[in-house]
């Protein structure tokens, strides 16, 4: 989740460039790690969006500095799209740009979940897998009934947990307290981070049949869900146990698959602090052989002040399969109970 902070704007020295060399309406600064070192080589896209929804983009230079020019006066939300999990994703709100002077803002990144162990950076693994796909711009495959076929192994571009969830004050306060205790994250116990199976940085597979799409994801637990396409309604609340992934039904709107999911439990941090009233709408549109657009709208009238929205893109992965990942295997409590026959001579 984006940490909300209202920033004090300080005009100061920017990595060899003084504020006097910047023009009014420019936003510039540098990326630094928690040790104060410049973050180099990422060359990440950086975007600022004003209250009217207009976006302006730049790119971080190899030396870790960035500069976005010709911004109209206003208050902006900043989003930094990082290619690696070495750093926590970064966003800011309340950035004020006026026409009197430049705005200098250094972005201090936090360390990410772990350090790029071989094969452990999910963002980089995603891009390595997508690089092998041929004919990305080819036509969208179709089912016998003419509907797009979403079948395939996919990985998502960009970090899954970007975007601020607009929580009500009581929920935001709980969330801010909970965030201080990393061991309370279900991910620390190999449990799902999010009730939205597509909100993952790991590979997932769609298996499309006329009556349902089965989604398998390679994340934490051996995870699956069904997106029912047979016209059924959601089960009555009395006949449903609130669950990690909820109950999903889908219908076609032209070539867009619209999926609605309800019936969530309250355990996944991927939606901040949320209630069992959480409702998720996803829209999937395969735009070419190798690309799929995903729009996500989540609503929770009991815990939030408004909807959470996100768009992202997925890339098809060829030449690999979903590989079993039972994260809890290494938990020490299980070690003692491991199959005794493994010790046979």
């Amino acid at each position, binding site marked *: 989740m984006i940490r909300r902070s209202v920033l004090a704007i300080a005009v100061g020295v920017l990595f060899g460039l003084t504020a006097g060399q910047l023009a009014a309406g420019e936003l510039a600064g540098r990326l630094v*790690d*928690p*040790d104060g*070192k410049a973050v180099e*080589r*990422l*060359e*990440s896209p950086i975007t600022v969006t004003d209250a009217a929804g207009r976006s302006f983009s730049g790119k971080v230079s190899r030396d870790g500095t960035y500069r976005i020019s010709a911004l109209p006066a206003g208050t902006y939300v900043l989003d930094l799209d990082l*290619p*690696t*999990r*070495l750093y926590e994703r970064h966003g800011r709100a309340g950035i004020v740009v006026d026409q009197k002077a430049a705005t200098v803002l250094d972005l201090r990144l*936090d*360390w*990410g*979940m*772990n*350090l*790029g*162990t*071989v*094969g*452990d*950076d999910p*963002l*980089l*693994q995603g*891009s*390595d*897998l997508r*690089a092998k796909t041929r004919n990305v711009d080819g036509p969208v495959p179709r089912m016998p009934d003419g509907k797009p076929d979403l079948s395939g192994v996919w990985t998502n*571009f960009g970090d899954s947990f970007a975007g601020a969830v607009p929580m009500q004050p009581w929920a935001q306060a*709980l969330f801010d*307290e*909970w965030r201080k*205790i*990393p*061991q*309370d*994250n279900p*991910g*620390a*116990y*190999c449990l799902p981070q999010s009730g939205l199976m597509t909100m993952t940085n790991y590979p997932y597979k769609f298996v499309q049949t006329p009556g349902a799409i089965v989604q398998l994801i390679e994340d934490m637990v051996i995870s699956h869900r069904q997106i029912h396409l047979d016209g059924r309604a959601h089960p009555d609340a009395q006949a449903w146990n609130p669950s990690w992934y909820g109950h999903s039904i889908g219908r076609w709107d032209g070539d867009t698959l619209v999926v609605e999911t309800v019936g969530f439990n*309250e355990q996944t941090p991927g939606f901040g*602090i949320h*209630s*069992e009233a959480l409702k998720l709408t996803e829209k999937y549109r395969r735009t070419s052989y190798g690309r799929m657009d995903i729009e996500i709208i989540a609503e929770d009238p*009991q*815990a939030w002040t408004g909807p959470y929205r996100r768009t992202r893109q997925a890339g098809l992965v060829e030449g*690999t399969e979903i*590989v*079993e*990942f039972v*994260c*809890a*295997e*290494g*938990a*020490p409590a299980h070690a003692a109970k491991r199959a005794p026959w493994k010790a046979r001579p």
Partner: protein
Amino acid sequence: MKPSRSVFLALASAALALPALAHHSFVAQFDPNKPRTIVGTVTGLEWTNPHARFYVDVPDAKGKVLKFEVELGSPNKLLRYGWNRNSMKAGDAITVEGFDARDGSALINAKTVKFADGRTISAGSSLQEDYSNKK
């Protein structure tokens, strides 16, 4: 049902007593500004989730043996980068470029591993020279 503060606080205090081997404490365990290269001999490999790990004996200048633990990612991802559970065995010569654990223990997080047969596996490390082809 609104999650209640008292339930949250009860969970919070229980959580603090948990064992350190829980998957990802979600704080930075390793320091990318403290790189270390070790050259030594493999003494064991644990090919397990959520992090495979192996152990290396490294002789110091005086011949004393230092024991290091090297942490990797999970086997499902390592498989895709060309590893499997037979990639190394006790007695193999190994070179590891990695980063020190912040707690000062003899634990490093691997960036690249060079095997006895000369192969180096480096794909997947967060620290790349160039991210422009990572899309």
